[in-house]
């Protein structure tokens, strides 16, 4: 990794002088971004992992709002404790509604769809955007030329988009399809890097820009011809395609300088197929690199899907899904030996989470670190309760959503907040719980969106009180 402190002028020279570049690489090199300058943006990461955590080990202990300690699962994040927030007592209410009203899906699929979108589910997909996509759209709308990309969606083992495998949505019925291949993500991110060190030619740069522009113009002409007469459904594709082309076009403009000295060229990931740890770390490195160079303000990271995705069989002898069910043996018998495996799986995810958060926190930015300028939201489809009435597995009550970072602009961090979550009877009115929609609403507001609710307002409107401190 080499820190890039290349002036615009040297950049341009290396650009023009490289024969290899001439045919291949678009403009907008990392090197365009000088090491200091702009204010850090408000950033967001949504992070998904499947099937939650073993409840007794996950939640903090002590006194909410008073003296408290991290739970066993996240104990490794002790250093970052002042930057975490645990809203305790949320219910993925929409998922409950969906399951009870239609019987059309189990908690996995419903929780998956609704966790980040808070919206209804139609067919396999949410009927509205997930929070980070909405935030991305909002940020880009208010600053259209700043970023190379509105958001960057990476994953591991997510499977193809579907009712049990998609948790992030661009909009109604529009699943995000996360890039699972870190090599492709790396190429995507670093295609703007080329051999450096040749001689200067402003004219050549201008010519190159004109050439790129002519290609984009031709593509737009075709897009217009094709999309002029389409119906609503194809229009969506056309618009998504157009957005992509516009982003390419943005690259031809000079962009703002980078915001942090962490704008470095990442090493190419060398990852064996199926190596979960290495793949996930490579993806996280790339997200941080993209932030450091201000290529995007928003990212999503999806590990697995509602029914699995990471092969824990080879690590701990049992799959995650089997373990989450077995731990309470259908609700009537606690099995400590299975709980031990559950905890191992949880710790495995906690290590991944720790890697990302520590990496974000290692990059100085503004008055603090990149983590302070980045709100990381952790969500999951379902979770494992220790004392549920039917069975511990796949509950959507006391869902372990938590947050890290964002202290520079969002919420007062370093807190464990209790919300009403009384243990319901079979016929309990779900509204006695605290719907997770409120947290999504609070996040939208933290990014300057003027909204009273996020997702389906009927399932919980208004913000989550107390986050601001």
């Amino acid at each position: 990794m080499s820190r890039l402190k290349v002036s615009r002028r040297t950049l341009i020279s290396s650009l023009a002088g490289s024969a290899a570049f001439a045919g291949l690489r678009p403009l907008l090199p990392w090197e365009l971004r000088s090491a200091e300058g702009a204010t850090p943006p408000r950033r967001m990461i949504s992070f998904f992992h499947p099937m939650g955590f073993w409840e007794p080990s996950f939640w903090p202990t002590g006194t909410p709002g008073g003296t408290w300690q991290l739970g066993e699962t996240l104990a490794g994040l002790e250093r970052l404790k002042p930057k975490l927030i645990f809203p305790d007592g949320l219910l993925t209410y929409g998922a409950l509604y969906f399951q009870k009203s239609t019987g059309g899906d189990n908690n996995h699929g419903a929780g998956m769809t609704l966790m980040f979108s808070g919206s209804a589910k139609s067919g396999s997909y949410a009927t509205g955007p997930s929070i980070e996509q909405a935030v991305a759209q909002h940020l880009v709308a208010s600053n259209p030329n700043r970023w190379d990309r509105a958001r960057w969606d990476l994953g591991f083992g997510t499977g193809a988009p579907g009712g049990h495998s998609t948790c992030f949505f661009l909009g109604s019925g529009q699943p995000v399809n996360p890039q699972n291949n870190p090599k492709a993500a790396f190429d995507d991110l670093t295609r703007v890097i080329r051999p450096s060190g040749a001689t200067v030619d402003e004219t050549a740069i201008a010519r190159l820009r004109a050439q790129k522009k002519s290609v984009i113009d031709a593509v737009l002409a075709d897009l217009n011809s094709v999309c002029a007469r389409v119906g609503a459904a194809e229009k969506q594709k056309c618009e998504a395609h157009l957005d992509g082309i516009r982003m390419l076009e943005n690259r031809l403009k000079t962009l703002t300088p980078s915001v942090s000295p962490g704008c470095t060229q990442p090493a190419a990931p060398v990852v064996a197929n199926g190596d979960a740890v290495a793949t996930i770390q490579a993806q996280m490195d790339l997200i941080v690199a993209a932030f450091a160079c201000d290529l995007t303000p928003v990212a999503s990271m999806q590990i697995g899907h509602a029914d699995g995705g990471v092969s824990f069989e080879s690590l701990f002898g049992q799959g995650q899904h089997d373990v989450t069910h077995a731990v309470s043996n259908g609700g009537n018998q606690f099995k400590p030996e299975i709980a031990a495996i559950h905890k191992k799986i949880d710790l495995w995810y906690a290590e991944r989470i720790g890697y990302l958060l520590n990496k974000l926190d290692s990059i100085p930015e503004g008055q603090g670190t990149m983590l302070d300028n980045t709100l990381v939201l952790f969500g999951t489809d379902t979770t494992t309760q220790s004392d549920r009435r039917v069975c511990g597995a796949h509950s959507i009550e006391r869902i372990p959503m938590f947050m890290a970072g964002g202290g520079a602009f969002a919420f007062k961090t370093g807190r464990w907040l209790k919300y009403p979550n009384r243990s319901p009877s079979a016929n309990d009115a779900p509204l006695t719980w605290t719907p997770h929609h409120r947290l999504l609403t609070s996040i939208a507001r933290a990014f300057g969106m003027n909204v009273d609710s996020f997702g389906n307002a009927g399932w919980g409107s208004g913000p989550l009180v107390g986050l601001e401190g």
Partner: protein
Amino acid sequence: MGSSWHVRLFLATVLLGGCTGAIGRNPDGDGTGGGAGNALWGGGRSGHGGGPGGVVGADCKQPAVDVARWRRLTAVQYRNTISDLTGLSVDTTPFLQDTTVGPFAANALVAPQPGDIDAYQVAAETIASDAVRDLTKLTGCDAAVLGDEACAFKFIDAFATRAFRGPMLPPQREALIAAYRVGRQESHATGIRLVVESVLQSPSFLYIAEFGEPTDTPGLHRLSGYEVATRLSYLLWSTSPDAALAAAAADGTLDAPDGIREQAVRMMASPRFRKGAASFVAQMFEVSRLGVAGAVVKDPNKSPDDSALLRASMQEEVSRFVDDLFVHGDGSLRTLLTATHGFPAGPLLKIYGVAADQIPADGRYEFAAGTRAGLLTQAGFLAAVPAIPTAYTAVHRGKMLRTHVMCQTLPPPMANIDFTPPPGADKLSQQQLAREHQENPTCVSCHELMDPLGFALEKYDALGRFRTTDAGGNPIDSSGELVGLDVDGTFDGIAALAGKLADSRDVSDCFAIQWFRFAFGREPGEADRCGLTAVKEALAAANGDLREGLLALVASDVFRFRKMEAP
């Protein structure tokens, strides 16, 4: 025909009713959302108020078809098409992630992601700079003789027409000429390169976009000859139309069912058809997933022989098997499901326990009696399903047969079920593992549909090796009872079960449905029933000859018409 459809649908409803009442399409879906949408679009809406009595094509005399979505080229289609256009091979694995309809790559519903657009740009730039290395070959003219612009215009007309699979509109042509002229300021070659870059990033190239021309029925368009040619070539060849197809499109041959049939017959005689058919079979039976990074996971301790090379040879065997089915075989689903030969080669020899010198020169090997029966016993299928290490192999394989080969829908497992294998599961037979499924009334209504089918395949391990005792040392009992189909009854072993499947009209109908999904990248809807019924009938009448089913499909109204979606 209409009544037989209803009878069949009714039967299916009754049979699956016990399996928690989820009938028809999978509510969990495949990413298309097509199921729910099509159900809503059934019947009266198709006529946009103009149809007689609102019941569309009840007698199959009026053309009727459900809404088809545009498809972005799948990875396979993109690769093949680039190869047609430029002679270059391109590795799409790093950037194209297909979405599916049923088991088939379709890219029909999911909008392109920003990363996709970027990736298309990089691919186009890479391909273009490679392609212009031999400019004369690419453009087919010598600029020194013809003049730069004349040569460029000739190239633009030929290349873009082919890449767009039909004639350009004036603004498209003008934009390409403009790009050429910008590049031309540097050199002729740069101009051509920019044209290639532009074309390969254009939606007209990347999407199978269809408009058609209005008909007398409001909301119903007849596809143009070029659009029909495109459907034909991606269905039968998995690539773009050749010159003969384009000519047939231009001269009106493809405006009539007979002309389409005639072209389809020609195309099915071509070696390219075997590629298309192999792609269909490999996807329908999940074998193609072996080539997708991370899609099939093996426990390295239990399957130490697993390797990329082995997986490639498994896929290769399926390709050769399908190829042989259409060159030397009868092209029937019976042969596909029951053949006792295969094409073991390379690392597969070890899996099949065959020595290299036993393989005949043509590669076609007759397996020992009673050890193999058709595609379901080929290593490629057995290794692909189950796709994860699990104790419950029979459940996974049985479920796959239900959904993919019988086109039946099973709901996802209910919440709050303990999936943990019982203590000592390693030592238990599949029947012992399945006891709970079979005894618990909540489980049995679905599991009686799945588990016994999987028992029939238990004599093959996770990589497809034949065995007579399972991993726990138990002698394998591969008998069971088939229910919920038109050929119900007991069986002992996969050969018997495969024979039943080959006899089944339901299975034959399922192949028709799968071809439909493969051809159009969507689920069939109510308005498609006449077309789909014609395919089912043709397939059955031809004793399962898949080629006859395809001919019925391409000549049907569903293939030739397009319903316009709401504006």
